[in-house]
């Protein structure tokens, strides 16, 4: 590239950086939010969950996906972070969440009629920066997710530097794979949980880590 053009690009970037700092953030840049589970943060993820992205946790029945989610939420919940929990249908058991260490005072439980309503509500919550994490519990539902609403949610999550987590079983509602930045697959091995990165834009894929959750 010609040096003159390079200088011009640099000048333009500087001007943009002053006016709209967000425009210069590259797609793969993010601030990791630690989950509080050390092996997960350091061995599987690059310091934590990627902020501003959508994440999926998949596991079959009794695989330990809900337990893992609660543990992660208790880690994310430690600071001033508020969590919105969207249940479709509703099987959320608060004593179990509290037993995992989630502060129920910072948890907002929402019961939308369907996923589309939930996505819209989450978008508003993120846009107004009222929450840091939104969980969509899709276990046992087969509704379709509107692509347009998912894109809008993705944009608002990015703007708020929050995290959107979809929890599902392999046969329940699917989220468009290209919208997901990180997909964790959970399996139960005796008294341990095996977590594998099925998809990751930020680290190695198909990496595996075993967690002992009794600690």
């Amino acid at each position, binding site marked *: 590239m010609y040096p003159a053009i390079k200088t011009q690009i640099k000048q333009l970037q500087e001007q943009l950086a002053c006016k709209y700092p967000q425009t210069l953030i590259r797609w793969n840049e993010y601030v990791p939010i630690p989950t509080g589970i050390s092996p997960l943060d350091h061995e599987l993820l690059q310091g934590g969950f990627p902020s501003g992205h959508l994440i999926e946790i998949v596991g079959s029945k009794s695989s*330990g996906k809900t337990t893992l989610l*609660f543990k992660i939420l208790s880690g994310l919940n430690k600071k001033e972070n508020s969590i919105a929990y969207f249940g479709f249908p509703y099987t959320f058991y608060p004593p*179990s969440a509290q*037993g995992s260490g989630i502060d129920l005072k910072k948890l907002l439980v*929402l019961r939308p009629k369907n996923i589309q309503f939930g996505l819209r509500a989450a978008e508003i919550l993120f846009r107004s920066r009222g929450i840091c994490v939104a969980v969509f519990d899709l276990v046992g539902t087969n509704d379709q997710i509107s692509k347009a609403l998912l894109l809008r949610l993705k944009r608002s999550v990015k703007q708020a530097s929050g995290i959107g987590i979809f929890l599902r079983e392999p046969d329940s509602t699917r989220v468009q794979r290209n919208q997901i930045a990180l997909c964790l697959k959970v399996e139960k091995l005796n008294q341990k949980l095996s977590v594998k990165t099925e998809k990751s834009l930020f680290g190695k894929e198909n990496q595996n880590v075993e967690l002992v959750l009794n600690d």
Partner: protein
Amino acid sequence: MIKRIACVIIPNFPLLIQFRNKPELDKTPVVLAKSESNRSKVLYMNIQAANEGVDLGMTVIQAKNVCPELCVLARDPKKEQYSFDELSRKLERFSPFIEEAKPGIAYLDASGFRRTYPQERDLAEKLISFIRLQGYPVKAGMAGNKFTSLVGASISEIYSYTIVPDGKEKEFLKSQSIQLLPLDQKTYETLHRLGIKTLGQFAILPDQEVVERFGSEGLKLLKLARGQDDEPLKPKIFDEEESQAKDLDSPLETQIGILFYVNSILEKQLSNLSGKGLACEEALVILKTENNKEIPIQLSVAKGTNKTKVFIDLLRFELEKITLPAPVKEVKVNIQRSSPLLSEQLSLCQKKEASVLSQIFSQIKRILGNGNILSPQIVSSHKPEGKFKLVRYTHHKDRSPKENRKNKKSDKRHITDLSESAFGFSQNSILGLRLYNPPKPATVRTEDGLVKFIIADSWYGGVVRQRGPWEVSGGWWSEGYERCYFEIELSEGEQYLIFLENPSKRWFLQGIFD
């Protein structure tokens, strides 16, 4: 600049408001009470009633005994407030800061009027003649603080005024009656017994002894009597009730069109409000359709804002809910409630997050419905479905003091319950529970007391492992329940929580460990 305050008193203001609607009562003895019931006390009366021997503080029945032709009217606080607000707004031409002490008494900030009114008496005269023109009898007082100006106005004759020069407050108050102090009956009687009849006599009492006898309230009274009232003026902020309508060239059928027009009207109104340092809390949009039907849409936010987009978003949600019977031919927007504009920096996950939640709460409520935004609380129970309750989420700011007290109590309970086991059933399992509420019926085959096979919720499987039973019973004071809980594991690794209900001997699926 020297602080000067003007006080205007309109005697018997609530009674005058009643006379405006009922001029025929002008020459009959009339009293005003809280209600027309016999036990209500006489609060205001006209000169005719006083001449007949009626006195303030009498009950209505007592007053009627004294004067059988007495007309008793009930107070109408809303009407009084509205009329006084109207007058106060007109008084804004004299001073931008007006405090309404109560209907009939107002304080005006009279500092810095030297250029317009070289003498204070010019201002007082103008003020009196202006209020007189509005049809009210008035008296005024002017002094360096609120209490002295009130005393000045109280002792003046109708259509006259008293001006207390700056620094001469103590001297002026010295000879005034002790009754001018805001005293309760008990304190007044005590002072009367002590032989204290003027403010001057009260003012010379030592601080310590007054505090010992009358408490901190006594010290406040002492300050007033000494002309040291330091209470600042609390200017009234009038609600901006601005309305603007737009007749449309061609009727609107689409949502986008309506939003576009409302946006243009709202933008103007909100920028006007911003200019006055106010923010909108509530707006009413009225859509008039071609068949002359009016559709009112109320838009309210928890915290005042001047961002048009917030109201437009709310309107969009509302429009999605309704079906318009015909195209819209007129759009009207009315700002119904406003509050002082406060700026706040929004940031994610900071302490201010709570106030942000309050603002967006109304938007979410419109999408999900009020009963679907919940906050979980742990409560004490033996049944898994009774171990928690989901209460309707209300933001702390929106809660009434009663609700806050209630929440504090439940928070305490919440802390004590932390010591309880989270699951209560599966000490061995590492997994959390997903609860089916209500429990799902199941068919179970048992052999020698062991669960062998289960069919539930369109699936079935052989049981390879089980833990239990854990017996749970309670609620004997009402319907009562007796359950035997089992934790089972199927051949494919799925773990469920099931229970046998006694005495019906029916099996239920309570939840899945996941």
